[in-house]
């Protein structure tokens, strides 16, 4: 299995929305390489005819009666938000002014 490079770690961090530092990149690249080389052993055993198992419990969609039940109030839902305005979540600006 291919080793993981520092550049790949940087790319994966971007995909994961993690603004990792240069020092973290250096550290993670070495550690992740060891981990991935070790876990690559899973490729040794499972043949094509083995079905994958994603879950130990057979999952079925659970439906309930269409009855109105109390949920969180607006205040409760907003209680943990880092910022709110006019009873809504306030999110950082997405579009620049000129757009």
């Amino acid at each position, binding site marked *: 299995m291919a080793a993981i490079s520092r550049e790949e770690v940087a790319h994966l961090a971007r995909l994961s929305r993690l603004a990792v530092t240069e020092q973290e990149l250096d550290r993670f690249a070495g550690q992740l390489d060891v*981990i991935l080389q070790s876990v690559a052993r899973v490729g040794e055993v499972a043949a094509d005819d083995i079905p994958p198992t994603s879950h130990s419990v057979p999952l079925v969609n659970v439906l309930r009666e269409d009855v109105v039940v109390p949920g969180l109030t607006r205040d409760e839902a907003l209680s943990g938000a880092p910022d709110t305005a006019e009873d809504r979540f306030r999110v950082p600006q997405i579009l620049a002014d000129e757009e």
Partner: protein
Amino acid sequence: MSDLIKLTAAELGAKIAAGDVSAEEVTRAHLDRIAEVDGRVHAFLHVDDTGAVEAARAVDAKRAAGDKLGPLAGVPIAIKDVIATKGIPTTAASKILEGWRPPYDATVMTRIRDAGMVMLGKTNMDEFAMGSSTEYSAYGPTYNPWDLTRIPGGSGGGSAAAVAGYEAPLAIGTDTGGSIRQPGAVTGTVGAKPTYGGTSRYGLIAFSSSLDTPGPVARTVLDTALLHQVIAGHDPRDSTSIPLPVPDVVAAARQGATGDLTGVRVGLVKEFSGEGAEPGVMAVFRDTVEALTKLGAEVVEISCPHFQYALPAYYLIAPSECSSNLARFDSVRFGLRVGDDGRNSLEEVMSLTREAGFGDEVKRRIIIGTYALSSGYYDAYYGQAQKVRTLITRDFTSAFEKVDVLVSPTTPFTAFELGARTADPYQMYLADLYTIPTNLYGGPAISVPVGLSEGLPVGLQIMAPTMADDRMYRIAAAVESTVGTFTPPAL
């Protein structure tokens, strides 16, 4: 130090119900103990003195009014900080959730309150339950009451240390790859991972959804069973919850305590026969197996050839699920927000927030998971790991056609010193070598203390078929009846 803190939960419940002691006295004794020792142990991230005394008084009022109390009414309990508790800070030991107070209770918490139990506070853990030593908490490590220079296991090190250090008679942990059993083993406490789906995950801050299982921690098998009975059972709010009756684990623990295992077939996992394990751990394990035969059990060696691939499969599956689950920490609806000064885009605010809010181990696993799920690597990593999960399940199914339970040491080594494994994450992962197969299969498993190696506790792991939780309690109680319980040195 009050004698009350040395009593078992079963004894405390009985005394409170009989009016020999009030729930408030019991609660205050434990709060006093926390005040006395937690500065050194650091089992708790938050202690709710006021709420605990109020809850205890409510139990005392009910008793005074003539209400019949349940077996654990008025008994204090510590809750792992990954369980949502309404109005009480819940951080999963992460900076990204610092100060968050959930607007709702987890189902496990609701059941604990309904049973009249008294929550003392929230226990320390590895951040988002990722770790094997409680050194990855953003709020500093927990120390093992047996030796304060050593780790209490992880990720539920706070829960195990609170119970081992007599700060609480009972605690709740969560077990994704061994996070109840491994801390149990290294702190000399009993920790059980119920059947996956036997206890509700509603209100658990998700790490790896197909593996996470809340479960009990205590100092005796009977106490563990009593708490198991309180929290287990179908929950319509969790689609993975199993709609079947809970096996009577309390009756099983009482039956096992008679010490008779005649007719029970116990399987010794051949692949866990000691390679890489400490000799002292293996010596205690061999003595315990001999004790099982003296109790009447028939012990046979069973091969589970794919167990050796459980650790690699787990360290692909769990990070993959975590990379998806932790995407919710995006700086918008709850938790931390960093860089929102108008100079950064939304995406930059998310990245800066997650960089500041997550610790190293969480970042490592998010990156591994993103890698394992990415195009081009999915089949080689995640897909293969899911196939290994099938092979491990087949190993268990085949084994349980021949034996009633499987046994192994819970951990390959006793509590190591703080800092000994943090520089090498893969070495840390080896702490969960023996506990992980059960999580991939979904069945129940328990760790029960069986002896000491160089003065530190060693645990026996008992693994049972899915929904046969009662069977493992019976055998655990029988083992306990013959080896006794183990008390740490005075703190």
